[in-house]
């Protein structure tokens, strides 16, 4: 059978991944540079009986997908910086009420309206701490379309597994660039479906009582179990509670269910990493330049490698520590003022040898941008 | 059609907050507030089973139970 090979934008790869993962419902609002996701899904979803709705604003889009998820649907929305800011309160709601959903943020320059049509990776920390209060979150990213597809599928799987919102942190370059995508056959990639309760009708169902394995089986709104969902701290039935034990227990659960599974959630790739003296830690479109440089210099005998992170939150501290242990220096290649740099510095043994190779002018960081800095660090001058 | 006849006015004292709406808006002054500010039935014989106390009660604390009365002449 011939492979399903496509030549697509990154945003389209995200759409293909979402549909492959079983997306049923999308609500969104137009915003550059993510709009193609909405446009494509407005066509593709109804073809398969799914639903697409263009809401009145970014907030409403986030709220609508949460409502739809509660009825048992796989849901997503897509946006960019300003919209991501607006969605934060409702993302916190999905964290608190433990509602599976996927939010794609195709990053552009910020703050504020910023640089709508140009690339940036400035929303890494916002993905982690954009909503108020303690919580944990999963954020995935990718540097090429095959991985955009794969990470999108993973995002849906993790949303179901951990009953949590999952953020896809793409960027303008990945979103708009066209390259090859091979859409996997059905069954090639694992799909995690909604875990539904086996509690029978008329038997007390506890929507917020985790099983032994930590998972919380759900019951669809409209089904046999009527329960309450709230953004307030709540007991195992979903009813509001300010009992100190229940409050602290729930908060711990919300954080632990993700942070304790950092290994299972971690996604990364190694490029020329073996024996590397200089390690470039990168992700998203900036990783493309880092990989290009490493491959290029390797062929000339230089020991440069790339650790490409595909999961940014929970931050893979142990992985970074282990992979960077033998390096003379670590360069974090990203298009912001050092948001992942801070994490890498905190992870490694020798933070003084961690440097930032960045670009913040709306242009994609190039291999020669990185090379220049690397030469300085190596004591070779520019 | 048979007229509704009062069987009982059941007041849930745990739910009643003593706002007095039932007392003051009853057309026949069937209810009063007692010493602990809870609604009580004092003149059940005057009740015309209009159910306005039950429907207006913000605490959902009143239930007017009726039975079929004599046929209307």
């Amino acid at each position, binding site marked *: 059978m011939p492979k399903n090979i496509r030549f697509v934008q990154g945003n389209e790869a995200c759409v293909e991944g979402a549909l492959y993962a079983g997306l*049923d419902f999308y609500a969104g609002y137009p915003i550059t540079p993510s709009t193609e996701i909405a446009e494509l899904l407005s066509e593709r979803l109804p*073809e398969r*009986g799914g639903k697409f*709705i263009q809401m009145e604003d970014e907030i409403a889009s986030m709220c*609508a997908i949460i409502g739809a998820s509660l009825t048992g649907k796989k849901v997503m929305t897509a946006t960019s910086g300003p919209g991501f800011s607006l969605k934060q309160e409702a993302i916190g709601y999905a964290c608190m009420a433990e509602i599976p959903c996927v939010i794609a943020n195709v990053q552009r320059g910020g703050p504020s309206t910023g640089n709508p049509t140009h690339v940036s990776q400035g929303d890494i920390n916002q993905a982690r701490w954009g909503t108020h209060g303690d919580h944990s979150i999963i954020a995935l990213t990718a540097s090429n379309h095959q991985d955009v597809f794969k990470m999108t599928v993973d995002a849906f799987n993790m949303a179901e597994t951990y009953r949590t919102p999952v953020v896809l942190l793409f960027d303008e370059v990945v979103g708009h660039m066209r390259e090859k995508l091979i859409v996997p056959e059905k069954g090639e990639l694992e799909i995690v479906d909604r875990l539904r309760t086996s509690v029978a009708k008329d038997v007390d169902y506890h929507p917020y009582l985790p099983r032994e394995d930590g998972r919380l089986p759900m019951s669809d709104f409209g089904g046999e179990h*009527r329960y309450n969902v709230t953004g307030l701290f709540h007991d195992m039935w979903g009813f509001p509670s300010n009992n100190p034990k229940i409050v602290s227990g729930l908060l711990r659960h919300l954080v632990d269910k993700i942070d304790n599974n950092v290994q299972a959630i971690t996604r990364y790739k190694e490029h020329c990493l073996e024996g590397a003296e200089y390690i470039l830690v990168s992700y998203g479109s900036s990783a493309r330049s880092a990989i290009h440089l490493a491959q290029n210099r390797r062929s000339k005998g230089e020991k440069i490698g790339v650790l490409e992170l595909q999961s940014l939150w929970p931050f893979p501290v142990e992985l970074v520590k282990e992979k960077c242990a033998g390096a003379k220096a670590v360069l974090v290649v990203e298009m912001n003022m050092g948001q992942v740099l801070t994490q890498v510095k905190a992870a490694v043994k020798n933070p003084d040898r961690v440097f930032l190779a960045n670009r913040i002018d709306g242009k994609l960081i190039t291999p020669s941008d990185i090379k220049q800095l690397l030469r300085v660090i190596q004591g070779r001058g520019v | 059609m048979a007229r509704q006849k009062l069987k009982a006015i059941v007041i849930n004292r745990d739910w009643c907050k003593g*706002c007095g*709406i039932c007392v003051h808006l009853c057309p026949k002054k069937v209810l009063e507030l007692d010493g602990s500010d809870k609604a009580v039935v004092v003149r059940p014989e005057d009740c015309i089973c209009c159910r306005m106390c039950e429907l207006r*009660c913000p*605490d959902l604390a009143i239930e007017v139970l009726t039975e079929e009365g004599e046929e209307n002449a």
Partner: protein
Amino acid sequence: MAVKDYLRERFLPHMWCPGCGHGTILNALVHAVEDLQLNKNEIVMVSGIGCSARISGYVDFHSLHTLHGRALAFATGVKLSRPHLKVLVPMGDGDALAIGGNHFIHAARRNIDMTAIVMNNRIYGMTGGQFSPLSGPGVKATTAPYKTIDNSFDVVELAKAAGATFVARSTAFHVKECTEMLAKAILHKGFSVVEIMSQCPTHFGRKNKEGDAVNMLGLYRDNTAKLGSKALEEKPGLIPRGIFVEQERPEYCEEYDKIIAYAMKEKIS
């Protein structure tokens, strides 16, 4: 089923103040649902934040207590993904028309089949008595110690203009009317709005010298009149009650089903 069968009795007595009109609205709503003999598994109540929003905890339906102002947006997701469900969206006046005003007009514009109940007490009760966009001028509130200068929305006119296909108004005094209106609104195919004027004796009443709950209910009796009544004709300054709009227009979920049917056919051919 009896009225109590629609309540989660273990959470009562409720948290509202003595004499709060919101309790009466809950009362009317469960009576309406009982009159219609609806299946509890097919009702979803979506509420926002505020005193009003607590209503969803007391009913034995699927209940979704959401964010301030966003109830209709959440409800839109529920309804569009499962159109056979009855979706009830009770909201406070600030909830529905200040922070949630945009969702209100857009849900009406779409004519999506759900029932918005505006529990209008003209005040933010939960936060202690600040004025709302329905307070109107000349009202005292904790954020208007010298009285409000803000004009108010007319919920009925706003809902009409935005395209709601069922628009009604009643008060917590007129409970039979309320119950009937709610039942009609729930049965109506399309976006229905029922504004119910609801007394807040604790904050609005006290600050504005309107007396206790009984007195405030008396004001609803005296200051409103039925649509088409002689009283309204003679005193046009009274607040009209009744059903202002009841019309048929294509409903959003049904229209989307047509899109699906078309898209599927296009794909096959």
